């Protein structure tokens, strides 16, 4: 039976007094890490969704190809695409936009230079009904220099990046958890050593191990909740501050608006999860130590 009355002066222990600070710090770090992981996942999903349902036809110009020929080839590719089942819309990209894409490498004058710029055609498709491979084959067979990019390689890299980021977030949260558990084990063992005489008295009077462990776990739960709540509030305030700062940037680099409604309960549950881990760790540490007593 767990203790309902605290017989041990655990709150005076230096190692116990520092526990809420450690738990608070760990919950803060876990909140920020988890938020980062969720944000990256949402960001990647957003990018991936932007590419889903689109393919790009490109026609590479050679030095021998005239602009008129290229225009004809673009028209031919558009007709060919439109005849393909599942294609929703076909839109050649204006040359100014193509030059804009190349501007970081060739400078702002890329469009005015006499360079054989490729032609690009955006095609929106219904992925379920479109045979992309067949379209690609026909384009390559009928139009010299034509090709089709379904962005699969980029998407694969994005998914890999996403998985790595998620893995890093999981590893970091796990490390934070392990650190928290280690600190609690240390604090509990310290408490056991400090109160060894009192614990022995309780033991010899007939206290069950659960009664003595209950003294530690009640204390640990209270301290875990206090520290966890403080860390969680600090973490959420930091996220809101980041969101505010990012909105001022207006670059879309840190789109905290991608945070979903269901992300918040996960973050808010962190201090409760931390307090539960702290409680269980203290309980099992004490039970294990008591198990060595007669």
């Amino acid at each position, binding site marked *: 039976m767990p203790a309902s009355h605290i017989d041990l002066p655990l709150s005076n222990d230096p190692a116990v007094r520092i526990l809420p600070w450690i738990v608070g710090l760990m919950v803060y770090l876990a909140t920020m890490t988890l938020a980062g992981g969720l944000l990256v996942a949402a960001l990647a999903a957003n990018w991936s969704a932007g590419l889903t349902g689109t393919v790009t036809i490109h026609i590479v110009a050679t030095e021998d190809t005239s602009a008129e020929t290229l225009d004809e080839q673009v028209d031919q590719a558009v007709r060919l695409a439109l005849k393909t089942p599942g294609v929703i819309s076909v839109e050649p990209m204006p040359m100014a936009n193509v030059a804009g894409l190349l501007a970081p490498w060739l400078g702002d004058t890329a469009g005015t230079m006499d360079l054989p710029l490729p032609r690009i055609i955006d095609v929106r498709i219904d992925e379920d009904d479109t045979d992309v491979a067949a379209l690609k084959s026909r384009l390559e067979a009928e139009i010299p220099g034509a090709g089709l990019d379904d962005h699969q390689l980029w998407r694969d890299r994005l998914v890999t990046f996403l998985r790595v980021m998620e893995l890093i977030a999981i590893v970091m949260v796990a490390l934070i958890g392990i650190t928290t558990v280690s600190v609690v084990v240390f604090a509990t063992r310290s408490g056991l050593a400090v109160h060894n*005489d009192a614990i022995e008295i309780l033991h010899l009077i007939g206290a069950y191990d659960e009664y003595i462990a209950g003294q530690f776990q009640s204390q640990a739960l209270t301290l875990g909740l206090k520290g966890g709540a403080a860390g969680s509030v600090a973490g959420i305030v930091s996220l809101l501050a980041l969101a505010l700062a990012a909105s001022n940037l207006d670059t879309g680099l840190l789109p905290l608006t991608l945070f979903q409604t269901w992300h918040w309960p996960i973050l808010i549950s962190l201090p409760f999860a931390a307090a539960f881990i702290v409680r269980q760790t203290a309980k099992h540490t004490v039970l294990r130590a008591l198990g060595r007593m*007669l």
Partner: protein
Amino acid sequence: MVRFENVGMRYGAGPEVLRDISFSLAPASFHFLTGPSGAGKSSLLRLMYLAYRPSRGVVSLFGQDVTTIQRQARSKMRRRIGVIYQDFRLLEHQSVFDNVALPLRIAGAKEDQIKTHVTELLTWVGLEDHVGSLPTTLSGGEQQRVAIARAVIARPSLLLADEPTGNVDDVIAVRLLYLFEELNRMGTTVIVATHNQSLIDRFKHDQIHLSQGGVEVRRVDS
């Protein structure tokens, strides 16, 4: 009630402090535990209040072999044993009331019952004015009475006292022995370890005499 069969005990890898101890005590009996210093009186008591395991032999309490019982059953058995330690072993951070209430709380008694019984017992031992005091603010004799009250509050079947008169004058020592006799009359088996020969002479009870690791039970002439 208490049965030792060829019991040996050693601390760690040290020499045996008790060797081939065999005796049995009837329920509701009263014994003095005597012997020279270092004879093993405290060690024998430690075996009885289940602080240590014998290194060999069998110790039985209440008809159960204490070396083979389950952990929870051992805790339950401890609740039937009241112990008065030579150094009292009170919880210094807790009030007199909470120290005495400890066995009842551990046994899961209700707070209103605890309050009634503890208040009654503290009045009986003359500490009604020290209910909220911390043990460190009390004299040695008062701390001893707190320790006694804690040992008897749950009406133990077996009461073990380790030099209970070591820190008090003769008048209080005699009063303590009367108290133990009263508990004994109510059915508690009492074992009092003491060096106080005048008390042993005054209160005619059987003796468990330890010497050089061996034991002898001396009966008093009735």
